[in-house]
């Protein structure tokens, strides 16, 4: 086919309009969320003392951190879905959840605690945390990748890694309502390891499926 012929064909298809990437990403995440939520209720469930726990600011802080991660990662991933975009400057957004968590650790350090620092850090749910967050992330990660595939990311592995952060942030939000370890030290350690794992999976998958 000659290039002029191809151009004529493309022009004939001009009437076809694609949905914006944000729309497809939102739709895919909304479709995957029930799967992760079903996994959550089938395997874990909300902790029994949730009504009392809600009055503990450190319990609430977990949701602020995980949702801040998910939100900032969604914003960055949408930016990176454009072919001319670079991470430059935008990566700072991802420091928001880190900053909130660091603030939480500092506050906890200043308050009198019943348990020693290492006990709070090690907690009693680390294994569940490292299993549940990545597993519940998977449907959401697939959704985020489907959403970003609709775009044209210049660096597929980076965009995939950010998709990993999106899904880990959302899965960690679910997990946080089950976990009885509320210390920001526990969150900074185990949630981070789980998130790093999902981010690595996202980068690997992204480098394969996000090329356009």
């Amino acid at each position, binding site marked *: *086919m000659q290039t002029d012929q191809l151009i004529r064909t493309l022009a004939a298809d001009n009437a*076809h309009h694609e949905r914006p990437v944000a729309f497809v990403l939102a739709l895919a995440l909304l479709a995957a969320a029930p799967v992760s939520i079903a996994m959550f209720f089938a395997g874990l469930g909300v902790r029994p003392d949730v009504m009392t726990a809600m009055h503990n600011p450190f319990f609430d802080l977990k949701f602020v951190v995980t949702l801040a991660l998910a939100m900032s990662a969604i914003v960055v991933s949408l930016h990176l879905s454009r072919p001319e975009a670079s991470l430059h400057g935008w990566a700072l957004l991802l420091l928001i959840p880190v900053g909130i968590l660091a603030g939480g650790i500092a506050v906890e350090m200043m308050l009198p605690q019943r348990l020693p620092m290492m006990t709070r850090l090690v907690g009693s749910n680390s294994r569940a945390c490292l299993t549940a967050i990545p597993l519940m992330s998977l449907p959401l990660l697939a959704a985020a990748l489907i959403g970003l595939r609709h775009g044209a990311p210049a660096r597929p592995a980076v965009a995939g890694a950010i998709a990993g952060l999106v899904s880990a942030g959302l899965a960690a939000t679910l997990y946080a309502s089950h976990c009885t370890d509320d210390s920001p030290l526990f969150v900074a350690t185990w949630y981070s390891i789980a998130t790093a794992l999902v981010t690595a999976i996202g980068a690997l998958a992204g480098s394969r499926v996000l090329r356009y």
Partner: protein
Amino acid sequence: MREREDEWTGLMRQAMSGDGAAYHRLLKAVTPVLRAAARRGLARAGQPVDQSEDIVQDILLAVHLKRHTWDANAPFAPWLFAIARNKLIDALRRRGRRIFVNIDDFAETIASEPAAETAPASEVAAQLQSLPPRQREVLQSIAIEAASIKDTAAKFSMSEGAVSVALHRGLASLTAKLREQ
């Protein structure tokens, strides 16, 4: 340079609001620039520049299928060149696995030869054959016989909507096949 790029941005805005003629003009206008860039890239990589047309078509398909990622408030050229660079690197990487005579010494001369020397593109045409018959017929009718969507619909006793769908699906799967090859 600046004027040309402003003109492209204007045409793309018109195209996005449904003006097919503006879109046609835009693609015609950017193609020589893309061709020159592809030839330069091939020459610099020490590969035969007569393969530039496959790269040009690859870029045009990506531009078409990803045009919803262009922000209508941003200039068009940086977006276009980002896609072109991405596709050129892809193409060079793919070709890098094959052996070619090094033409570095001649690169400058060959790159400055007129664009008409270019060999015709073959990859899109080859992949066209592997499409489902309906999509292939519709694409061929519009591309090669220069038929309109309306004429194509009448010829195959299809609705215009069905022709449009087959056309878009055909272009999308053509692009997917090119990516996988």
